[in-house]
């Protein structure tokens, strides 16, 4: 009984303290905005799930066609190739992983806190260094929302900063960030020695002690992109 009461006391105090903390720093206007952003994130997750489900259903319907077997076989191969090139298919192969997180060092008085956190430029530089090292598929994980899928990088992917939040494919992620890449042999060596982009990250890692690690992997699996692949403002030019 005493132990249970002690746990209640701890949990109650912690709950009370964290509530006080939030009350202290969030204005009512901000609370409304936070609540709106959270709702939008929930909507986004829901829609991504529904799109993934509908795309799976679509793929199974495409395989069930009753037309000419040869034509369907050829078409299926072309569709798979196009989906792979677009990043819509889950892929597996040798590669590497990179992890980066905010510094654990206390921010010295007078210094900007933003020096000690992972910035959008860090992620952009790492990703660019990976593409430049021959990566064939990349994903970034680190969502603010529990259980959210990895963001597969595709032709329309932007890595964009909104304050401390970093948006990848429009999904808000938070550190630690895990970047997985599939690429040909030697990708890790090429990444480590990548001249321009990685140099900027390493400079910040050393100056502010951001947490940074990377290693080669024999096998990496990267999910397919889930999101909008349909164009609203343009259309494919018909090929002869």
């Amino acid at each position: 009984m005493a132990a249970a009461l002690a746990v209640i006391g701890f949990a109650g105090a912690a709950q009370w303290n964290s509530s006080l903390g939030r009350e202290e720093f969030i204005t009512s206007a901000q609370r409304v905005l936070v609540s709106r952003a959270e709702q939008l994130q929930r909507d986004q997750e829901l829609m991504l799930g529904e799109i993934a489900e509908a795309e799976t259903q679509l793929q199974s319907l495409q395989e069930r066609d009753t037309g000419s077997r040869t034509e369907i076989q050829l078409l299926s191969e072309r569709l798979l190739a196009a989906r792979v090139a677009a990043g819509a298919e889950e892929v597996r192969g040798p590669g590497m992983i990179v992890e980066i997180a905010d510094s654990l060092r206390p921010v010295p008085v007078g210094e900007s806190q933003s020096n000690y956190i992972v910035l959008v430029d860090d992620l952009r530089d790492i990703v660019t260094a990976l593409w430049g090292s021959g990566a064939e598929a990349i994903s970034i994980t680190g969502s603010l929302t529990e259980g959210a899928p990895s963001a597969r990088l595709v032709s329309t992917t932007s890595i964009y900063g909104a304050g401390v939040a970093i948006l990848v494919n429009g999904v808000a992620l938070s550190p630690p960030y895990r970047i997985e890449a599939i690429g040909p042999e030697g990708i890790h060596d090429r990444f480590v020695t990548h001249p321009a982009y990685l140099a900027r990250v390493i400079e910040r890692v050393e100056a502010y002690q951001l947490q940074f690690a990377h290693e080669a992997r024999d096998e990496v699996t990267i999910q397919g992109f889930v999101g909008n692949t349909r164009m609203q403002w343009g259309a494919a030019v018909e090929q002869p």
Partner: protein
Amino acid sequence: MTRRIAQLSLTVVALVVGVLLIGQLRSQAPAIELSGLSAQELSDLIETLSTGNAQLTDALTEVQQQVAEYDRLAVAGDSTVTLTREDVVRFSAFAGLQAVEGQGIVMEIEAQFQPTSVNDLIHELRSAGAEAIAIDDIRITATSVPVLGTGSIEIDGVSIGNALRVTAVGSPDGLKAALERPGGILSLLAQSIAATFSVETRDHVLVPATERDLTPQVAQPVE
């Protein structure tokens, strides 16, 4: 009697512990991260999420319509080959294997570029909703990155100069506004590398297909 009271008390205590712990866990969840943002940052985030969600709503509607169309054809016993062919075109265009035409913008920009500044420009256009981008007729695919080649910046192995022509398919007004907003990418490039530029909205722009083979060498689709 005393034992029953003790059991009841323990049940109540366990319940309270559970409720408090869940409350504590929830209070440590994502909201704390978001509450670290300023009102301006939250507004930006909301705007970006709203735009993204509107696009996802459209995408969901379209894919659901496509599923319904496949179902209809299957019930009627008709072939769905035409629909599948359309899907091949859709993914090819999205990947960059096929040229794309539509509304958008054309930007002429001149500066002493660094690879990072060209990269920032690409990310800005994508975040403003560009559906296809070309720089000097080089189609920007997922893997296209500006890197320092031998003496000049290269994208996909092709050198680019100090004067670039950027073509993007997307909302003409949306793209132009995002590029030209105060504190946006163009004003930053004007300050940092003395960029001079012009952005024109167009009813018709053409973004060519990539000349690269996008077939991966080691990444294999998972069965």
